[in-house]
């Protein structure tokens, strides 16, 4: 009997959700370099006429939400997506949202929040076998970009940016907000040039631990997201 009452109570409180019709929601990420499609291990010419190649590019998107007038109206689950240039299936995020939702912003985090960072072993996109977890000091790598550029003074002209860190004062997670009109599919460009055109490869040192330089670099990286 008690169980039945609990069940009815559950139904009542969730009636609103159950009665709502759902509609599809999809994000397609489109990685580009100077507007041409981005591929790993291919040489590109920068605007400064330098030659650049990317050998690894992956990052976490989390906490995806729809926002109306600065108020979150819907959170998308599950919360963590690993976008990996090696796997084009990872460029699509599909979900369902309630019908007739009103919103004017899509927001998400570039990286993994601090609570998740201290929650122990996790699976799926967050499994440490994804190569996005630091082993010698706990914490997720929010964003990984590796490659080489003729301007780089490091051996083999390499550059390595592993950006992460969840503890103050080296918390590297970044919030991204994109103004939008409502539609069912969004194309979000990842224009890598918007980020790396701000990097002085002649000066830049590799970043592979939580520190000030990682945060500065992560701020620059936020500029690559453009709603099409």
């Amino acid at each position, binding site marked *: 009997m008690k169980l039945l009452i609990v069940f009815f109570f559950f139904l009542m409180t969730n009636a609103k959700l159950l009665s709502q019709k759902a509609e599809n929601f999809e994000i397609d990420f489109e990685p580009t370099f100077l507007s041409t499609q981005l591929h790993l291990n291919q040489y590109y010419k920068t605007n400064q006429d330098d030659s650049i190649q990317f050998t690894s590019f992956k990052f976490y998107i989390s906490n995806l939400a729809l926002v109306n007038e600065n108020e979150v109206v819907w959170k998308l689950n599950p919360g963590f997506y690993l976008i990996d240039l090696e796997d084009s299936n990872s460029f699509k995020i599909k979900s369902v949202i309630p019908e007739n939702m009103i919103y004017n912003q899509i927001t998400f985090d570039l990286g993994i929040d601090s609570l998740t960072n*201290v929650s122990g*072993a996790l*699976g799926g996109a*967050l*499994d*440490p*076998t994804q190569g996005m977890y630091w082993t*010698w000091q*706990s914490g997720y790598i929010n964003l990984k970009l590796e490659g080489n550029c003729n301007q780089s003074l490091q051996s083999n002209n390499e550059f390595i940016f592993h950006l992460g860190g969840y503890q103050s004062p080296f918390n590297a997670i970044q919030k991204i907000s994109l103004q939008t009109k409502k539609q069912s599919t969004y194309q979000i460009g990842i224009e890598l040039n918007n980020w790396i055109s701000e990097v002085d490869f002649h000066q830049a040192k590799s970043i592979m631990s939580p520190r000030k330089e990682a945060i500065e670099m992560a701020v620059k990286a936020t500029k690559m997201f453009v709603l099409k």
Partner: protein
Amino acid sequence: MRYLLFCLGFWMLFSFFEKENNLFYVPRNWPKPVYNFKNNLLTEQKVLLGRNLFYDPLLSRDNTISCASCHSPFNAFAHVDHNLSHGIEDRIGTRNSPTLMNLAWHQSFMWDGAINHLDMQALAPISHPAEMDEKIENVILKLNRTKKYKSLYFNAFGDSIATGERTLKAISQFMLTLVSANSKYDLVKQHKAKFTLQEKNGYKLFQKHCASCHQEPLFTNLKFENNGLKVDSKLNDIGRMKITQNAKDSLKFKVPTLRNIEFSYPYMHDGRFKKLNQVMNHYTNEIQHSSTLAENLRKPIALTSNEKVDIIAFLLTLTDKEFLFNPKLGFPRAK
């Protein structure tokens, strides 16, 4: 009324299960563990899987080194006779491998607290070039190819697939069962044994001079402290500061537990002392003063040689033979 009976029945059933599941317990009068067991419920099968992983050299690049290589049960899961940890191809690390016990009460791991969760701890030695020098991705590939593990994972998780998450959680499960709380000291606290006069005097001196950092019942306050060791100019280890990049943490290391100290030599983060009397002499005569020195070491500690012997006598009461020689925690032999 019927509801009450139902609840009572449920509670009885539950407490029965808890007793049956004798894998982990909180000793009487101990604080609450910090490990979140809800996210990794202990089962016999998972602990067994973790125990197999712990003793398996498959975890290292050339299949020669297991966790137990540097954490052997007879040394309270530390590394006997090696001041610095000794890994693959005879490579030598920079720190003394710590004991493993009562880990459910620890918030962070390693001498500098670099690891924030027990689940993530195993990743560090697996990938360290002077330890196992392997990649977790490759460990998982090897596990998925090994017949023995198919049934171990199946029994533990309901299918035979090894993943990073499952593997790390299983290793955690085994490490969580390493509870040491059956030393003579514990029996004295439970009024089941009595200290000798010497041990009693040693306990008093311990409480006065040592207990602020080596807090009972864990015998560590789990904090990071600078205990005034002279900096080894070759290792030049700044300790906790490496992690926080804060000068206030310079030369601070995690306070180790003193449980089973009789068997966990050598001592200190770099294993510089082989004998307990060297440790005593350090605290009375060799403290190096600096801005980060632990508060309680700022005033000199004066102890007669008899008093030092008494303290050592007390420290030996922290030996828990039941823990050290528990076959359930040892190498998993096939039945």
